[in-house]
């Protein structure tokens, strides 16, 4: 198959933009990055199937039809993304309600150990009491 350049470029841009947002701290931004990535993946899947007439038997010649299988995968992915978006939004809201912001926080324990590492200390869990 010969790839469609427009798709190739859009996929790249959607992935780049999505990743850029994903690497941020605000959960709503991360979520939007995920949505962009989702769109990018969908187009990537679409790229793997032939374009053509809608795959409706009778409305078009079978040979001219677009490949239906990527469409099925994408449909599933779109709907799953919807569910995930709803969940993440609820999560963002709860995060805001609990913390007063929707920022992704660093793990406290990990930070503690990083401080120990920076100050060249041990784990402090030796049995000495």
């Amino acid at each position, binding site marked *: *198959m*010969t*790839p*469609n350049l*427009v798709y*190739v470029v*859009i*996929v790249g*841009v959607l*992935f*780049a933009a999505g*990743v850029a*947002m994903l*690497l*941020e701290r*605000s959960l*709503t*931004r*991360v979520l939007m990055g995920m949505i*962009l990535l989702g*769109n990018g993946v*969908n*187009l990537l899947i*679409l*790229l*793997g199937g*032939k*374009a053509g007439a*809608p*795959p*409706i*038997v009778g409305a078009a010649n079978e040979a001219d*039809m*677009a*490949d*239906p*299988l990527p*469409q*099925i995968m994408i*449909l*599933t992915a779109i*709907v799953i993304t*919807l569910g*995930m978006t*709803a*969940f993440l939004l*609820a999560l*963002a*809201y709860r995060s805001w*309600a609990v913390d*007063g*912001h929707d920022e*992704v926080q*660093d793990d406290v324990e*990990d930070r503690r150990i*990083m401080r120990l590492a920076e100050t060249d*200390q*041990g784990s402090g869990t030796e*049995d*000495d009491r």
Partner: protein
Amino acid sequence: MLAILLLHALAALIAPVLIRFIGNRALYLLALVPASAAGWAVLNPGSVAATYRWVPHLDMDLALRSGPLPWLMLLIVGGVGAVVLAYCASYFPPGDPGLGRFAAVFLGFAGAMTGLVLSDDLLLLYVFWELTTVFSYLLIGHKPEQAAGRRAAMQALVVTTAGGLAMLAGFVILGHGAGTYRWSEIAESPLPAGSTTAAVLILAGALSKSAVFPFSFWLPAAMAAPTPASAYLHAASMVKAGVFLVGLLGPALAVTPAWQPVTVAAGAVTLLLGGWAALRQHDLKLLLAYGTVSQLGLLTVAFGAGSRAAALAGVALLLAHALFKATLFLVVGVVDKLTGTRDLRELSGLGRRMPALAVVAGLAVASMAGVPPLAGFVGKETLFAAFEHDPLILAALLAGSVLTVAYGLRFLWGTFATKPAMDTTAAPRPPLALAGPAAVLALAGLAVGVGAPALDRALTPYVNLWTGTTGHLALWHGLGLPVLLSVVVLLGGAGIFVAQHRGLRVPEQRLPTADGVYRRVMAAIDRAAVEVTGATQRGSLPFSLGAILLVLVMMGATTLLLSGFRPGGIRLWDTPLQLVAGVVVVAAALIAARARRRLTAMILVGVCGYGVAVLFVLHGAPDLALTQFLVETVTIVMFVLVLRRLPRRFSERPLRGTRWIRMAVAVATGAVTSAMAYVAVSGRLAVPVSVGFPGPAVAFGGGHNVVNVALVDIRAWDTMGEISVLVVAATGVASLIYQRSAALQRRRAEQTVPARTGPSRQAGWLLAGESHESIILQVVARLLFHTIVLFSVYLLFSGHNAPGGGFAGGLVAGLALTIRYLAGGRRELNAAAPVDAGLVLGTGLLIAVGTGAAALVAGGQVLQSALVDVTLPLIGHVHFATSACFDVGVYLIVVGLVLEILRSLGGELDRQHAAAETSDAPTERREKELV
């Protein structure tokens, strides 16, 4: 033999129960268990083997084999074990809550030790080996309140396990090379490749177990264990395991180059250092512990030297040491129990108060010192004889023996002597139950000495496994060098004792103490752990994601380079309209990534989604476009519902410093993904399987819309999974927003309130009234609502032949509800859909999955569909696929999802916000503010 092991296991399990019911006397009963092992050995002096399958694939079976050396060990393990258990009955106070546990672990240990000496399969041997380590750990920590005791237990555990693991690696090398793990078979065939490495690794295990230099330090620390346990584990049995292994494997492995130098050197050093350290101890138990270390070194030298005579001496000393050292520990136990101290500086005049005990101890020390006619003498004589022609080793042995005599005397003097300027220590007479077991062991030492020739005969088969000069066990070898040396040793030892008594200070050895090494190693591991963890576990989500993406980029780039792909061809587009839509998508995405305000970003992401929907249309995917438009719309509504509560702008970025890194990762990810897509598409040769879809879709699926038929029939299993995802997502939204059962119950009560009846102009037929609700929107919403729902049903049923289907239909119906909610808030929503979302979701899932299960019940495959064609009078031809039922389930689930979203993110957030605004009842948020 297996029966003995099982008996031990059983006894260990019932010991706590038994002790709870009949008290300390139960120990006498339990002592019969190890005694039975010794008894079995007495009855079966020859070679006995038995094999039971366990894990044949790993060549690890319960292969047991008794031979001369195991036989002797069995006698020690069983005999001493029985005696010590009997001793424990009086040693522990009645009703000691820890006794049940102690007895269980003790018996477990005895069983493991028995198994260890009987194992023919090396892997099985390792199994028992590790078990003894664990039981030892638990016994050392019998009184775990002191940090020192716990640390000692840990030290013993770590050191012996480390050695054990090395040994395991050695076993695997041997076993893999030889093609079998049965020692009896390995020993009879030529050594496989890698045996030298194996030998070194095995020695690491053996020497660490026997506390030989440089692993000696754990044993003195292990004296935190109750004294009977020390007597058994750390004198008689467990520490002998390493020596036993050297003795067992030596006949075959001693030919490897490292074997003899390592064993002899390490043994000799241990002998001297241990003896030296023992001289400096004040705690009687520690004195004995260092003495044990020293003696283990001696044994290692004996078994490691690799000659018949030395091995014979080794066996004799092994037995002798077990007897006299266990005796001495039991004696210390008695003293400790009766006086409350083990410090020889606090003890005085005990010899007069406990003469019998003093005699017993004297007997044991004499054996240790090599005084005829005791077992120790027999062994040591033979040993001197074996090394007659090796002056260097002989000198070390002599020095060690001299030290042994010295600390032996120090022990006797320290325990029993009446010291000037000290009161006689107050103590009751030791009861027979305590002194008896010690006496038994001491007398056994005497018996062995006297019965040396018999022992010699019994051990001949073992000794013959070795090469070199043969020695003999006898009380009298004739006048020769050995006897002379014995005399020298006794005199030298006495001399040192006297000198020390007169004030000679024994300087502390300046060799690096291995204990320090252990501490440093563990501290280094701890530091390494902190450093590595601090470097790899940053606890930051962007870091975790960045790591994953970097791997993606590197992996993608590498494989792309490896693929050596030459661009074959490229098309710009299928239709130029794709470019138009593409520009919109790209622009929206790029600007969204830079947006500072949440809603702006959201709108741009939405535009991007609409653009993708247009691309779907252009691609020939109307079903996708339809769904995408609907999903984007629902998404925007959801975002608005949540974002209305959140700050308008994204918060200030704490990540500014890493901005360029993130940009680079983003661009690289995009580029690599594009390239991979390009390469993958270009690489396609075969025809896709989906060319086979259209025909069967009509013939068997009963629909013309291939995508929909695939969704509800050909790939309905995927769809079933997908709707489960939706169900759970909806549930999760409720879970996060409502949190508590009570809140959800309140909601249920609210939503079942019937819609207001009767038009009432004054109250308004609309529930509206708040300033942000619009009459125009409300009227239009109500006018359109049923039409939209009808349209959703149309989409549901037309979907089989045209764009549409359960997903699209459900989303449309959900949006109808959304419009009602937007118009009139949650009360309007409840009026429109007075039903619990969970019920809708459950019903939908039941219908969809039930359709699949029904096909199963009907004798088809799961989710198999049937076509129904009926011609009804007046009405016409009805064509129906049962998969439509499945689609109804899908429809309901999507409706349920949207309903749940509206109730939770819409209505409940309204309520929470209103409550927070108006009431002085503190909400959760306000409480947080105060904190």
